């Protein structure tokens, strides 16, 4: 029997029409929603100034990184990973842009990337992929870079928010001209640790900052007997606050998220937490090495031993806080759908008469940094021995986020994450801080690692170091004690030719915008 459509039925059907009309859009959006929630989170953690040589994870005799050792058991450990630069500005810029220092040009102290690289960064790639992008750093030099990438970061937490003191004004007063304003503030205006400040107000500010520092140091004296960790002597912080905040982001941030967190420890001063002081009062002595002629300091071996011990204590403190973060992520099940990446922007020289990283030397202590990556739900350790570089991280993350590798990117996808371990590939670290940003690089130290060989080329320093090289076989001589450039001149010449050709090509092709 034919049943006619009642008025009620007709009205019901009519009410369905908008739903039918929007259905394709809804299906598309829900597909996108589920696709995004299916995308893995990326938690990218950088500990500043961490040398792989001082990590037990990489064979250091002192147990400096037991928590990173635990992490490594369920991660990919890259044993030949090299920073892009010898200090924060170039090293971090290489990570965030996937480009060599001679391309992105952040090789000066307080350096920033060239204008054409401001939109060529890791955050932008994740923006395209629909990620929530969050970032924090203790380090003012990193903040200068992040400020350039600010439009591509969903939430960039100000440095001061996780510090105990607030010493900068240019970031909130002049956010649109932060680079120049901060340079002036740092150099002249109020709190310059060396050189000229303003005539009257800098002295007043110094009194205020010093008294504030004393007050806070006394307050935390039980926990930090040597004084609080600090960035440039006036910005005091405790690492625990940053780790607590990162824990919160990991659990509460919108999914999928990309979090880039660049924390200062174990950067000097080595004001470590109480329980780590004296931890390495042992008999361990490093292999003595000659003082390098280009060393800008002249510490003797007993002094170096003390610095090394204090540095190791700071590494252990940073490792303990990493352990706290790692345990939380494990317990909450966050690592089931998250890539956890751990690395550093550069290492630290505590040998050859040199302490620090703002020098011209590019030995393994300063160029070789940790890179440990766990994939979602990874339960086994994988070791990668082939050389990799900081510029490789961006293309790898792009690949993991399902995005195309940008044409301007100079790195490669890391082995075990979509890339292949190849032989014959050259990985570079550069120190060129004395060159003008917009001019060819003529004064530099450049290190090139190719398979087991490492060439360190010195250029433009005058005298013997105007154009000279050192060659090491890292497999047979990991401590870089035997310079092979005289005993194996053909190999040295080949590698040198390749390095200089690369530099020449970079110089020839760079045109300031």
């Amino acid at each position, binding site marked *: 029997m034919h049943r006619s459509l009642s008025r009620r039925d007709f009205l019901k059907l009519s009410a369905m029409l908008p739903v039918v009309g929007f259905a394709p859009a809804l299906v598309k959006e829900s597909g996108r929603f589920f696709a995004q929630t299916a995308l893995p989170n990326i938690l990218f953690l950088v500990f500043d100034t961490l040398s792989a040589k001082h990590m037990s994870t990489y064979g250091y005799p002192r147990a400096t990184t037991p928590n990173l050792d635990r992490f490594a058991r369920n991660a990919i450990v890259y044993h030949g990973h090299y920073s892009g630069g010898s200090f924060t500005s170039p090293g971090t810029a290489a990570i965030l842009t996937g480009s060599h220092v001679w391309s992105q040009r952040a090789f*000066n*102290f*307080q*350096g*920033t990337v060239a204008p054409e690289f401001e939109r060529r960064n890791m955050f932008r790639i994740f923006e395209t992929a629909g990620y929530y992008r969050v970032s924090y750093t203790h380090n003012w030099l990193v903040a200068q870079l992040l400020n350039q990438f600010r439009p591509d970061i969903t939430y960039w937490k100000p440095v001061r928010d996780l510090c105990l003191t607030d010493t900068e004004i240019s970031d909130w007063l*002049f956010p*649109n*001209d932060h*680079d*120049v*304003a901060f*340079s*002036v*503030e740092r*150099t*002249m*205006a109020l709190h310059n640790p*060396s*050189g*000229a*400040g*303003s*005539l*009257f*107000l*800098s*002295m007043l500010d*110094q*009194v*205020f*900052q*010093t*008294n504030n520092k*004393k007050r806070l140091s006394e307050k935390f004296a039980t926990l930090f007997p040597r004084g609080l960790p600090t960035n440039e002597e006036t910005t005091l912080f405790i690492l625990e606050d940053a780790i607590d905040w990162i824990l919160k982001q990991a659990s509460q941030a919108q999914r999928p998220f990309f979090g880039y967190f660049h924390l200062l420890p174990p950067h000097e001063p080595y004001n470590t937490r109480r329980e780590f002081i004296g931890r390495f009062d042992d008999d361990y002595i490093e292999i003595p090495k000659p003082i390098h002629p280009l060393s800008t300091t002249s510490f003797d071996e007993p002094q170096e031993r003390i610095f090394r011990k204090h540095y190791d204590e700071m590494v252990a403190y940073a490792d303990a806080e990493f352990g706290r973060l790692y345990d939380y992520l494990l317990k909450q099940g966050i690592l089931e759908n998250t890539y956890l990446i751990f690395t550093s922007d550069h290492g630290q020289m505590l040998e050859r008469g040199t302490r620090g990283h703002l020098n011209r030397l590019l030995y393994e202590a300063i160029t070789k940094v940790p890179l440990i990556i766990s994939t979602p739900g990874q339960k086994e350790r994988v070791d990668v021995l082939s050389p990799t570089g900081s510029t490789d991280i961006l293309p790898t993350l792009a690949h993991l986020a399902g995005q195309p590798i940008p044409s301007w990117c100079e790195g490669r996808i890391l082995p075990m994450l979509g890339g292949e371990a190849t032989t014959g590939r050259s990985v570079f670290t550069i120190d060129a*801080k*004395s*060159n*003008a*940003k*917009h001019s060819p690089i003529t004064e530099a130290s450049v290190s090139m690692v190719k398979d087991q060989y490492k060439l360190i080329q010195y250029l433009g320093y005058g005298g013997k170091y105007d154009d000279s090289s050192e060659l090491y076989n890292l497999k047979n001589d990991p401590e870089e004690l035997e310079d092979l450039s005289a005993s194996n001149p053909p190999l040295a010449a080949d590698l040198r030719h390749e390095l200089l050709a690369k530099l020449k090509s970079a110089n020839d092709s760079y045109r300031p915008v």
Partner: protein
Amino acid sequence: MPSKGDTANIFAVCALPVFLWAIYSYLYAFPGYVLRLNAWDLIGALSYTLAFALLESAITTLPFVIASVLLPPRIFKNNIVVLTTVIVLVTSIWMIDANYHQVNFGEYEIGRFILYVTLYLLTVAVPITIVIRFDRIGRIIQGFVGRLALLVYVYAALAAIAVLIVLLRNF
């Protein structure tokens, strides 16, 4: 309240060492700036430096203007400009030395700080006494400040341009 002319003179006296030191600071940092800043950014860095110097000059001027309002006129014996000049110039010499040697008063123990302040006050008190006793010296200083005040217009113009550049760079 000091007259407009006196206020301008006081400002000129305060601004002179501040601006000179600011230029010195800029030139000190210039080798680092020039490595990585382009021409417009170098102008920007100078503008921030001069704009801050303007602020610092105004802040330095304020205590003297306030003192001249609050304290009885006979204290200054109508020599507010001369006395300010002496105080500012002596203080500037001390501050230049402190800056150059990276003195941090915050690290001074109370005894050392009192000694420093005592020495400072002596070096201020002696020339002030001389100036008050010998009118001729006061007149010479007044003449110097009068000519210096012409430079105020230069400072003001440079500082105004600097502030404009700072605003332009930020908005």
